[in-house]
């Protein structure tokens, strides 16, 4: 507290407290950042003035490692980027290599890839839903999300051989044919999850505490979403229709009928709703494909050593978090000259500053949850 003198040299009776902005490090070992992400927060009391993400704590130089690997080996590295969408990452690399080779891949492969991609998307959103509840203090949702995800990981384990980092795609197709139980298990899962997904709504969506903490908070306008390059459900909740599955269909997405989920409110609650709606759409896509998987080869013939013709190739896919771009430059060797990944998490993270200005710290945690960040995807 200060005592001031007024113009006449007499003591002013007014006393005031001087306040000052200060910094807080959130992370890199903070549980709610879901990995090693460090946020440098500039705070005024409890109000956030600035969020500065510092990344690089889990950088493994995947892009550089790709330059020494063969194209088959590049695929398995992408498992370790956004591990919750690993099948979709693998698919992106394979599609890019197939584009370079101008390889016609069998219809069966396209169907299998699409079904497993959508299962991956559901599994990723289930995990996100559980973690989102946990970030807001509800452990229950975490356990319920994992309960239903378990059925999908079983499907993966039986057909692909692993639960998370499956490496099921190879350039030209998939590694093995689907397991005889695959269709039955997938159908079982769909009918099970159709009953269980309304439970998610009852547990979280309609809950007052949850609504109070997410509605109207973390607003991201459509213009900001576009200028930051935000993609995926986070951008579609702000009214930016950017679904690659719809805009530039790949694999079997041109054969299925599904809605692109677009909302306009742009707050945390809407981003939450967008993902729940996406789970319904994904189930709808799987239902259309599961009975119509065409017979045929599960892999097109490729040479043992793949060499792409010299040139530049780019492939975009829609992962559970947004748009993943794979850019390969080839100089006709058995390894790529340069590989660049445009990962969705990186662009989504940097919109956080705009969204969080003026909010409280506790809201920041909820906001980060609705962006669904996966840190290894940001750092690579």
């Amino acid at each position, binding site marked *: 507290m200060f005592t001031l003198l007024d113009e006449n040299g007499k003591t002013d009776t007014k006393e005031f407290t001087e306040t000052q902005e200060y910094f807080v490090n959130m992370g890199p070992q903070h549980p709610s950042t879901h990995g090693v992400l460090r946020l440098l927060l500039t705070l005024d009391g409890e109000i956030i003035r600035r969020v500065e993400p510092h990344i690089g704590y889990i950088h493994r130089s995947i892009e550089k490692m790709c330059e020494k690997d063969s194209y088959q080996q590049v695929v*398995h590295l992408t*498992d370790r980027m956004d591990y919750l969408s690993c099948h979709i990452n693998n698919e992106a690399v394979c599609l890019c290599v197939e584009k370079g080779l101008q390889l016609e891949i069998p219809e069966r492969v396209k169907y299998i890839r699409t079904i497993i991609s959508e299962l991956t998307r559901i599994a990723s959103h289930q995990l996100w839903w559980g973690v989102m509840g946990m970030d807001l203090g509800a452990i229950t949702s975490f356990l319920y999300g994992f309960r239903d995800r378990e059925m999908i990981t079983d499907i993966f*384990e039986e057909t692909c051989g692993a639960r998370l980092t499956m490496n099921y795609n190879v350039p030209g197709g998939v590694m093995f044919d689907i397991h005889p139980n695959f269709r039955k298990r997938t159908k079982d899962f769909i009918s099970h999850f159709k009953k269980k997904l309304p439970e998610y709504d009852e*547990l*979280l969506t309609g809950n007052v505490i949850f609504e109070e903490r997410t509605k109207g908070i973390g607003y991201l306008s459509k213009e900001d979403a576009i200028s930051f390059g935000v993609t995926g459900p986070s951008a579609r909740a702000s009214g930016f229709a950017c679904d690659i599955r719809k805009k530039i269909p790949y694999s079997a997405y041109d054969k299925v009928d599904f809605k692109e989920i677009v909302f306009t409110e742009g707050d945390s609650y809407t981003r939450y709703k967008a993902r729940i709606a996406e789970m319904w759409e994904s189930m709808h896509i799987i239902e259309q494909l599961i009975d119509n998987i065409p017979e045929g080869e599960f892999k097109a013939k490729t040479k043992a050593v793949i060499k792409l013709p010299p040139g530049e190739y780019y492939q975009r896919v829609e992962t559970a978090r947004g748009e993943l771009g794979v850019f390969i430059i080839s100089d006709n060797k058995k390894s790529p000259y340069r590989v660049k990944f445009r990962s969705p998490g990186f662009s989504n993270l940097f919109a956080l500053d705009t969204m969080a200005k003026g909010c409280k710290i506790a809201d920041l945690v909820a906001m980060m949850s609705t962006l669904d960040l996966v840190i290894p995807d940001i750092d690579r």
Partner: protein
Amino acid sequence: MIKSIIKYFSEIFRGVKSLLTGMKITGYYFTHPKEIITQQYPENRETLKMFDRFRGEVVLIHDENNEHKCTGCSACEIACPNGTIEIISDKAIDPETGKPKKVIDKFVYHLSMCTFCNLCIIACPTDAIKMAQTFEHSVFDRTKLTKVLNKPGSKIMAGIKE
């Protein structure tokens, strides 16, 4: 005034109702233990069976005569993205032709470096290796994770060519 009182109570009512909706579900599972899918590991070790394609570790298949199919061609070593496999080969005299022939001396597998990508298995021309379904890999000393996969005294099956 009246309006704000009504609003106040209706909000309380809405809050309590939404909490009860959630509690109904947790209560349902509390009273229906059959729906719980938790497995009691490690108590269920005997009955726990992994799927056939599950990738636990790479093993070299030996038959009952202690013979394997590995020719020492190193295709798996080349296919492996992270140097997990080392084939140390040796020369031996082929009993049929009398000419020297490449055989494996040691098939070294560093489990700690393996990413379980399955690329080695699909690269092997003679299907000599496969993925085993074991998953309890923890040991106290990491040198124990470097394994020699060919059993002592084992040799290549007759008739397997590169």
